[in-house]
């Protein structure tokens, strides 16, 4: 049944995912097992397919919608069982930049991989990342920029995190952003696409 759930998730079949989660719960499977052996592996497989250009944004979005529907069914049971998220990630697009498709894609894939997301939206000032990270006990901050003129704002976020002694990684991404740029501004993480962002954040939070 959990394998079937993965397939339904990858195919973006929301109603099937919901019904399979219901059936799994009714069969007495623990919510954590449904999450960790059904939904999350489905999203992980989807991430690999996305990275390999075997699926594209439309397929990822319908899969994320199916994932959210499944999670909606599971969440009360997870809360009851005291299951914690893999980590908490504060995410947003930098100050001066209103572009959010890439940022939303990363947020959806992180959520689908078991992370709690604090989405600050677009045009986010450095101090807001800091406040949200402190208030939520975040394990990482993820920031996105589409424009060459706004990506320079990323350095302000990294500097603010360092100055505050927060000690959590900042992961950056977006069309003009490169690994070299991440190194130059001392961002600890860089991801060229949404699936890589999940891997990079997982690696940094686990480190």
């Amino acid at each position: 049944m959990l394998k079937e759930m993965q397939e339904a998730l990858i195919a973006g079949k929301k109603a099937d995912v919901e019904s399979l989660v219901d059936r799994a719960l009714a069969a007495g499977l623990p919510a954590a097992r449904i999450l960790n052996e059904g939904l999350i592996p489905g999203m992980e497989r989807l991430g690999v397919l996305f990275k390999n250009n075997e699926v594209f944004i439309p397929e990822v979005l319908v899969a994320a919608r199916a994932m959210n529907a499944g999670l909606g069914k599971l969440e009360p049971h997870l809360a009851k069982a005291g299951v914690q998220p893999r980590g908490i990630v504060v995410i947003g697009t930098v100050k001066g930049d209103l572009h959010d498709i890439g940022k939303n894609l990363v947020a959806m894939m992180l959520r689908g991989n078991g992370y709690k997301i604090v989405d600050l939206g677009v045009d986010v000032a450095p101090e807001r990342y800091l406040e949200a990270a402190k208030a939520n006990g975040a394990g990482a901050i993820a920031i996105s920029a589409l424009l060459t003129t706004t990506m320079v704002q990323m350095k302000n976020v990294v500097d603010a995190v360092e100055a505050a002694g927060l000690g959590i990684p900042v992961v950056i991404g977006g069309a003009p952003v490169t690994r070299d740029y991440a190194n130059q501004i001392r961002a600890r993480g860089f991801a060229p696409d949404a699936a890589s962002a999940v891997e990079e954040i997982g690696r940094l939070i686990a480190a």
Partner: protein
Amino acid sequence: MTSRELVIDALEFRSPERIPRQLWVLPWAERTWPTELAAIREKYPDDIVQSPAFLAKPLRTTGSEHEPGVYVDEWGCRFENVQGGIIGEVKEPRIAAWSDIDGLRLPEERLSVDVRKVDDFCAASGAFVHARTVVRPFELVQFLRGPENLYMDLAERSDGLFRLIEKVHRFFLAELELWASTDVDALFFADDWGSQNSLLISPDLWREVFKPLYRDYADIAHKHGKYIFMHSDGHIAAIFPDIIEIGVDAVNSQVFCMDVEELGRRFAGNVTFWGEVDRQHLLPYGTPGDIRAAVGRLGRAFDRRGGVIAQCEFGIGARPENVAAVFENWNRWPGL
């Protein structure tokens, strides 16, 4: 030899005397580097120009497209902007429900072109003249539906989406037919299809839904003896063969997102590479020496006794000395 003849020689692979050129300028550059931009324009005048629209009826828009604040375009799409000099982002879809399609007003003012004035402009210009169209079916439906809705509509092959595409496509066909009846040299369509490293949707889905639209546009151009030019941002290598197959004469794409040499090996000689030079890294952060190397790379990859137009965008962040170096080095090609 006129600019127009130069461009046609490039498009027809007839060994143009020099590589023809065109500079694209975003309002940001006009505000930030007015003196430098004027000098570049004087030293390297465009061989390709766009005809004014000469609309008898003004477009129904509100606000300013490139200013902070809200701009509503002629389709009713509402753009929000926080940075002057560039266009904003649509945050609220105009077509929230499919029933909204019936109430979608077509911008008929776009069809009020004064053909005689366009023809007079073409006659007076020694340049190769592009039509003043804004034909972009994918981007327009993205603006109308909102990006996330649109991608899910595509995944689900929603009937409503096809109704919406049909409605805007019919309008674009009328607009292109109108411009094809003028004396312009080329028609033009644009949609941004690539992310940094792949197509935004699967190539198969692109072929199923969008390729037929573009084929219609290319057919209109060729039926009237015009060239057809296309622009797309991002990594579009997967659909290059399709673009060539439908008969596009010149493609403007972010070739530096892709493998320049591989593009050259596979497609040079079959289509004209209408620019560009890397505007994400080289133009803002490179040096004139980097630009010289980049132009040499492009020339070796794409020039087949034609098939190259030296285009670049003076956009956000670009350095004026790098923009000037693009044209300076293309003028020297192949002697770099």
